[in-house]
């Protein structure tokens, strides 16, 4: 099925390689995308720098949301946080109403797959719980956000209803 203008623009915004190709040769990139005939000229006439700026803005907003959801993880990453997130984010673009949660969890997975010690497991457990449907969650964690230094604790999560928050988060120090 041929893509319409909006769908094709969406593809350009989430795919950095495609944007590079578009920047070199817009007509070829539009042809490769399989855009419907009526929209090809309008798409090929777009300013590549504008598309790049728009993509950067979207990535900035995702980074901001991830920082909000993973404050301790980003604090541990320190100055490497932004670069690490962008490395993850340019190839994965979650969609839908829980996309920011999906993004934060996906970023943690990305870090864990690379052996990074920065992931705050208590944050990750919480986000997974909020994203899921279980009413209870119990985790043994070594990095509770209530402790100034690492120590073992039980993280207990309880969902008040079968909805996303409100939920209760408790840490029991061991």
């Amino acid at each position, binding site marked *: 099925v041929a893509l319409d*203008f909006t769908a094709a623009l969406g593809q350009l915004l989430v795919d950095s390689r495609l944007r590079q190709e578009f920047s070199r040769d817009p007509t070829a990139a539009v042809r490769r995308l399989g855009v419907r005939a009526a929209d090809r000229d309008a798409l090929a006439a777009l300013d590549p720098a504008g598309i790049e700026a*728009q993509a950067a803005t979207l990535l900035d907003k995702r980074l901001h949301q991830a920082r909000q959801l993973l404050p301790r993880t980003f604090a541990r990453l320190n100055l490497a946080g932004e670069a690490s997130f962008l490395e993850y984010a340019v190839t994965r673009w979650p969609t839908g109403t829980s996309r920011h949660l999906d993004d934060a969890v996906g970023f943690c997975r990305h870090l864990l797959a690379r052996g990074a010690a920065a992931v705050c497991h208590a944050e990750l457990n919480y986000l997974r719980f909020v994203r899921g449907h279980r009413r209870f969650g119990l985790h043994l964690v070594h990095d509770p956000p209530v402790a100034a230094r690492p120590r073992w604790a039980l993280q207990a999560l309880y969902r008040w209803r079968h909805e996303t928050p409100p939920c209760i988060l408790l840490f029991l120090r061991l």
Partner: protein
Amino acid sequence: VAERCRTPLLLENIATHIQVEGEMAEPDFLNRLCDEAGCGLLLDVTNLFVNSRNHGFDPYAWLRELDPSRIGQLHVVGYTHRDGRWLDLHAEAIQEEVLDLTRAVLARAPVPAIIIERDLNLVELTPELEKLEGALRGA
């Protein structure tokens, strides 16, 4: 959507770095969209401002083309100017140019709500609130 939610729906004008040749003028599009969908407009004054700078148009002329009766809420924050582009990063105090534009909106539309969209570089917001209160009084 409004019927399903049983609450008024407001659609927001976006900040965009992309311009499509031959497209309908944005105020015309928003007027028609609101008319035909029966919804209101959440006018992001900063988005309007940064678009006017990035695409070289007069934001006051843009405003004159917009149906003011559709405006149900405003978003305002300072713009960021970086690498030759104006951005809406929710990171700066409201500048005088954005405040002037806000005053122009308020002079045309009795807006029931204004939200300061500040997410980054958070500081004491009282001066921002005072600026907006001044703009409201001026309108």
